[in-house]
């Protein structure tokens, strides 16, 4: 392990292009994150097409930079303007803006930056130690285990990503149907292609991601036009004192643990991590009433929790090939485009690359720290860019990006349709991420299910006589049934009381 680590260190420092890409990525990420309405997912989806021509390390670090910067960037506008740039920063706005109004905007920004950095870096360290262990376990997985894993991932994502369970499940099922398009994985029979040649290899999922996560957001921002904002707050000294920081350490460590754990669970992302960390910090604090009125612990908890989520979310992606949320789904697309199949074999076949990436990710966080401490006030000014300029540019980038993947105009049309559909889905509370995850997990579930049956000579026993599939399938059933049982129970209680 140590030699892999040192190898990674020397790899990254002999690759100036990758370092430059990390800097570019973090800067783009912070800008995207700071802009209300643009999320880290959108940033990663828009930048993804640029990475095709690059070496894997440079391309993936560019995307990681956008991802990390995007999660952090939301806090800048949350603190200065009370408009959280990303959903995850909504909790940061509670105390951050209160601090800014007390004239302590600089300190709030400093605490947010330091906490994001610490939480993020520690989560990458956890990722570094935890993922080889998990990958080793997953190496033993055969078809029934992988099938159960895909079902488990899908069930969690469909049940927690939306406001309504039914709508989340519908999105998941539509995604699964889309995943069935193309050649049958076992028999090679073309399904639902409508005679369209480009559909033989399935629905192109990167254009769908760009459409659902970037174009639809651009369309949505059109209906929220004309919000003029200006940063008026004066920013003084940014670094907190050592005594202040030392007091924050327990909060940061607790939030990091929570954030990393929440990140590992499929379906829960940075926004949930931020809110849970905030609530826990409040619960552990002696001064509960101070929260929401400008407490640096509040800012610190949200930011370290949200950024710790990044390392956590990468654990199932890299070790199992299961993306936990929308951002990591896009990252999975990027890995596959580079010819890297995430999963246990990635560690076996590309161990060198994986460790180089880990080191690079820590470097991304260091870059983020420096940018946050020295340039946060300039990043905050991006909100002054009028939406009327921003939205057309985003749409152009969506179109070029989806074209560049395969040099295919067909992909562009798919992207545009996905953008329109995605807009209406958002408007009517259908979550988009189950569609994308189903596109990835659907083929995996089907092929592994049928491979498992081939192993067992057609007997379904194989799914419940082995421990891991049994546990995972039971967990999926519990995930799906709990909300239903809860709803029925509440109705029953109302009727008989």
């Amino acid at each position, binding site marked *: 392990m140590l030699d892999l680590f040192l190898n990674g260190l020397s790899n990254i420092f002999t690759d100036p292009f990758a370092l430059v890409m990390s800097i570019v990525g973090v800067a783009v990420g912070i800008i995207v994150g700071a802009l209300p309405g643009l999320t880290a997912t959108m940033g990663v989806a828009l930048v993804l097409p640029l990475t095709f021509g690059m070496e894997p390390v440079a391309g993936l670090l560019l995307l990681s930079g956008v991802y990390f910067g995007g999660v952090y960037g939301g806090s800048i506008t949350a603190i200065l303007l009370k408009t959280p740039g990303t959903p995850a920063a909504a909790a940061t706005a509670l105390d951050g803006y209160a601090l800014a109004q007390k004239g302590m905007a600089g300190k709030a920004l400093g605490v947010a930056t330091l906490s994001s950095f610490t939480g993020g870096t520690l989560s990458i360290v956890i990722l570094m130690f935890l993922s080889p262990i998990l990958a080793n376990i997953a190496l033993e997985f055969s078809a029934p285990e992988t099938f159960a894993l895909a079902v488990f991932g899908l069930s969690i994502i469909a049940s927690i990503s939306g406001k309504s369970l039914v709508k989340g499940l519908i999105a998941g*099922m539509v995604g699964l*149907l889309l995943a069935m398009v193309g050649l049958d994985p076992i028999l090679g029979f073309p399904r639902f292609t409508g005679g369209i040649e480009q559909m033989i290899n399935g629905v192109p999922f990167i254009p769908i991601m760009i459409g659902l996560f970037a174009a639809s957001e651009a369309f949505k921002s059109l209906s929220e036009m004309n919000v003029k904002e200006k940063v008026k707050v004066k920013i003084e000294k940014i670094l907190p004192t050592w005594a202040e920081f030392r007091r924050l350490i327990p909060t940061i460590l607790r939030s990091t643990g929570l954030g990393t754990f929440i990140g590992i669970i499929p379906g829960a992302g940075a926004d949930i991590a931020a809110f849970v960390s905030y609530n826990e910090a409040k619960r552990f604090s002696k001064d509960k009433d101070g929260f929401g009125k400008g407490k640096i612990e509040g800012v610190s908890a949200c930011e370290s929790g949200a950024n710790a989520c990044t390392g956590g979310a990468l654990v199932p992606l890299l070790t199992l090939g299961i993306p936990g949320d929308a951002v990591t789904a896009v990252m999975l697309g990027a890995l596959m485009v580079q010819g890297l199949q995430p999963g246990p074999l990635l560690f076996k076949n590309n161990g060198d690359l994986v460790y180089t990436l880990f080191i690079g990710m820590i470097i991304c966080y260091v870059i983020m720290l420096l940018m946050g401490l020295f340039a946060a006030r300039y990043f905050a000014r991006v909100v002054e860019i009028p939406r009327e300029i921003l939205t057309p540019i985003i749409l152009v980038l969506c179109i070029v990006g989806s074209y560049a993947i395969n040099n295919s105009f067909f992909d562009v049309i798919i992207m545009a349709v996905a953008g329109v559909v995605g807009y209406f889905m958002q408007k009517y509370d259908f979550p988009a991420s189950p569609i994308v995850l189903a596109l990835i997990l659907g083929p995996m579930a089907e092929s592994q299910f049928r491979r498992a*049956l081939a192993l067992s000579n057609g007997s379904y026993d194989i799914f419940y006589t082995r421990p891991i599939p049994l546990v995972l399938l039971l967990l999926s059933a519990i995930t799906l049934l709990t909300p239903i049982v809860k709803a029925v129970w509440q109705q029953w209680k109302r009727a008989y009381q």
Partner: protein
Amino acid sequence: MKKVDIFVGLLLIVLSVATWITAGNFPSVGDTDVGAGFFPRLIASILLVLSLILIASGYRRRGGGDEETGQTSWKQTLLGFVCTFAFLALICLCGFFLSTPVFLLGFMWLLGYRKPVPTVAVAVLVTLFIYLVFEKVLQVPLPAGLFFE
């Protein structure tokens, strides 16, 4: 009553029935394999049940029509759809590098942003940026359009 939910539910029922019927013609080989039609049919039947639940809960919901957002904002989004698809058509005809500045200028103008210097600057710089990054660095030839091919 939630009209949208009912409409979406009906649409999805059509989709699942169509899937079910189409998947009936898919081959199945051997004794152990469930065949190419099994998963599509399974998913279609789950989708059918979910659509029925969606419609039922749509009927049950009390209180008038759907909550509508402001009329003007809806117009802006519709404008966005129209401009985007017009842009795609234009790319097919005149190629990417002619259409992009036209789209950017036209769209910003239609959205009500009409300061001449920033709009022209944005249109030119964005097109130039894309040209450099995609054509020069990544070497992706962007569509030239029917007229120039």
